[in-house]
């Protein structure tokens, strides 16, 4: 089985390649990348005028499966991923039950093999039940398929426990992901603390809640030598802490979400529950710092924190609304805005959505070299579209970007050489497994 992707603008951030080339795929693997490859006997994908890049990798999604299938399932979540140009995702453990035992990890893997159309990597819990009290069996979980550990949504508040978790997990070579927010400082807040919160009479979450938690976890990485990946940073201070930590050689990486580098706290006005997030949307100064952090490499990864919620969970009083938004189907276009604004080059942007996330969690993918699995996205860089949440492949529609005009339309997504999404909406090969 041969496929040739012809005449595309091949952007491969690893070697820094950006030129018009063909890609030959044989048996799910990239076998040649060169110009004018013969296409006799092969399926031909015409990518003229399109960008051909490594399949995007999102290391922060919530697929709600098992337990909250009314919000999302592995089947719908992976379709949303494929439609957004993603070929692999890492799913967070705050399911019901929590992914803190091998049985749940196995369930996720089996479900992904049966119903998924992109690669699904489970993230295990650091503590049993995400309760922050006792460590999970991280050895068995990592050999059983968990690629990282996280108590996502909750910070491991007990400093000694976090230290021991890092010491324990280090020999297994997987990183701990930290949702860095000191809940003793968030103190019931529902949006960023500051002028807008004061104006709206909403309780604020100060930046120090994040910065203090980031600082502790970075210092624990320095102490233990274990890898720490800081999830969804949102403050100027977090960028500065991570910049100096990296300079000092501490083994840390971090991610930012498209919504945190796009929207400010002003989006909350009108008590807009679609703008309610954890961590909260911050200020324009924070966004500028995040842009600089992306630019200078302090921020390695762009991840969505894809957090599906049912409409009923957002259609309530602001303080009762659930945190988070879906992100898989808008992430690429929102990131391309940074390219248009010349904050990132196209290659840098794609790197932070493929190669860097692969590196952060030691996953395969993120490159178009010969011999690599043919996980590829083909997209139209210039084509405009209007975000219509009703057309999302995700089961949920919670986004603050509805009605936005964005650039960048995914034309085709391939996992191991198989088309799992094409611009016409066909996801036919999904059910056959990857």
């Amino acid at each position, binding site marked *: 089985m041969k496929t040739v992707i012809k005449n595309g603008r091949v952007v491969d951030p690893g070697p820094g390649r950006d030129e018009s080339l063909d890609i030959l795929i044989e048996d799910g693997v990239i076998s040649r990348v060169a110009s004018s490859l013969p296409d006799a006997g092969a399926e031909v994908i015409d990518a003229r005028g399109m960008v051909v890049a490594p399949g995007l990798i999102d290391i922060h999604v919530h697929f709600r499966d098992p337990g909250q299938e009314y919000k999302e399932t592995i089947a719908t979540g992976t379709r949303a991923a494929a439609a957004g140009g993603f070929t692999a995702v890492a799913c967070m453990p705050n399911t019901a039950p929590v992914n803190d035992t091998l049985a749940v990890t196995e369930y996720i893997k089996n479900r992904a093999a049966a119903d998924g159309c992109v690669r699904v990597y489970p993230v295990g819990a650091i503590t049993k039940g995400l309760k922050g009290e006792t460590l999970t069996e991280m050895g068995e979980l990592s050999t059983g398929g968990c690629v990282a550990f996280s108590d996502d949504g909750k910070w491991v508040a007990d400093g000694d426990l976090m230290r021991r978790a890092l010491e324990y997990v280090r020999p297994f070579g997987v990183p701990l992901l930290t949702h860095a927010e000191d809940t003793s400082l968030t103190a019931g807040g529902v949006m960023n603390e*500051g*002028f807008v919160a004061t104006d*709206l*009479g*909403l309780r*604020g979450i100060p930046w120090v809640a994040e910065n203090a938690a980031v600082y502790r976890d970075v210092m624990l990485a320095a102490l233990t030598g274990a890898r720490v990946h800081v999830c969804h940073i949102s403050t100027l201070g977090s960028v500065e802490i991570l910049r100096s930590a990296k300079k000092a050689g501490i083994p840390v990486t971090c991610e930012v979400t498209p919504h945190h580098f796009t929207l400010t706290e002003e989006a909350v006005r009108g008590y807009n529950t679609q703008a309610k997030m954890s961590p909260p949307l911050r200020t324009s100064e924070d966004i500028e710092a995040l842009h600089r952090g992306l630019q200078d490499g302090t921020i390695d990864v762009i991840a969505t924190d894809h957090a599906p919620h049912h409409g009923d969970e957002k259609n309530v009083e602001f303080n009762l609304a659930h945190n988070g938004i879906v992100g898989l189907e808008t992430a690429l276009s929102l990131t391309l805005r940074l390219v248009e604004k010349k904050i990132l080059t196209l290659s840098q942007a794609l790197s932070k959505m493929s190669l860097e996330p692969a590196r952060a969690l030691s996953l395969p993918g993120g490159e178009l070299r010969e011999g690599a699995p043919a996980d590829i996205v083909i997209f139209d860089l210039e084509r405009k579209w209007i975000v219509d949440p009703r057309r999302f492949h995700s089961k949920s529609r919670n986004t603050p970007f509805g009605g936005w005009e964005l650039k960048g339309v995914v034309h085709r997504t391939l996992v191991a050489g198989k088309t799992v999404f094409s611009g016409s909406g066909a996801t036919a090969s999904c059910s056959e497994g990857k």
Partner: protein
Amino acid sequence: MTFRHKHILGTRRFSEQDITLILDTAESFKEINAREIKKVPTLRGKTVVNLFFEASTRTRTSFEIAEKRLSADAVNISASSSSVVKGETLEDTAKNIEAMHPDIIVIRHAASGAADYLASRLNCSVINAGDGAHEHPSQALLDLFTIRQHKKRLKGLTVTIVGDIAHSRVARSNLFALTTMGAQVRVAGPGTMIPPGIEKLGAEVFTRMEDALRGADVVMMLRIQLERQGRHLLPSLREYARFHGLNREKLALAQKDALVMHPGPMNRGVEIASEVADGPQNVILEQVENGVSVRMALLYLVSGLAPENT
């Protein structure tokens, strides 16, 4: 001059003309409350639902009396627990009430934004009777009415608000309304109760209450919620009374004819000493009295009848 607001959600959105119209309209209603037969047919055939999710005696009674004096049919719902306990959403509760065709819903709710939430989902008019720490517009307007009655103006006055500014909807609504009318607003309170960015909303922030009082034309004391002590915000009520309570000595720093105001209910001996609460400068019961006229004005104005028809 016509009133272009369908809802009364907060004073933040009101212009100087809006506020003047409300106060002038309230003025014209004031006389009704002094009559022997305290009733006019103005809102006959209109249904007003008072939907209170939080306990309230003063505000609810004031609205109800205002509604009845205008001949509206008033219905009180204390939804404090019923719908929440049954798991009904705020939207469903409100839509069920709306299905019975009320003209106006007056809402009191613990969540900031609850009145905005209803206004964006219902066809009838919504009057905010207090939403969380956001706004309490009718309270601020009755405060302005009382101040104007005594001082004959609002522009150029210095109004000092003392207490828990961070959690106070009364403080926000007064701040917005007073600054719109050209008054200077000072705020003072414990450091834990001054919200960040309040100066950007037009308030001058004082750390010492004495400095805030110096030369003030009006002193507005806020109710301190007793449950706040011992929960990081306040060491003790004793300490609060000493640094942020109003007594005769501190009041002497303000103008001689400064008004003493309080939205009630008062904690005597905590934020306000009885010698001041009952003293010659207090207008606290006048505030309550004026509340009825101001709420009559609000009900009348949102019902869409032209002011000439009074």
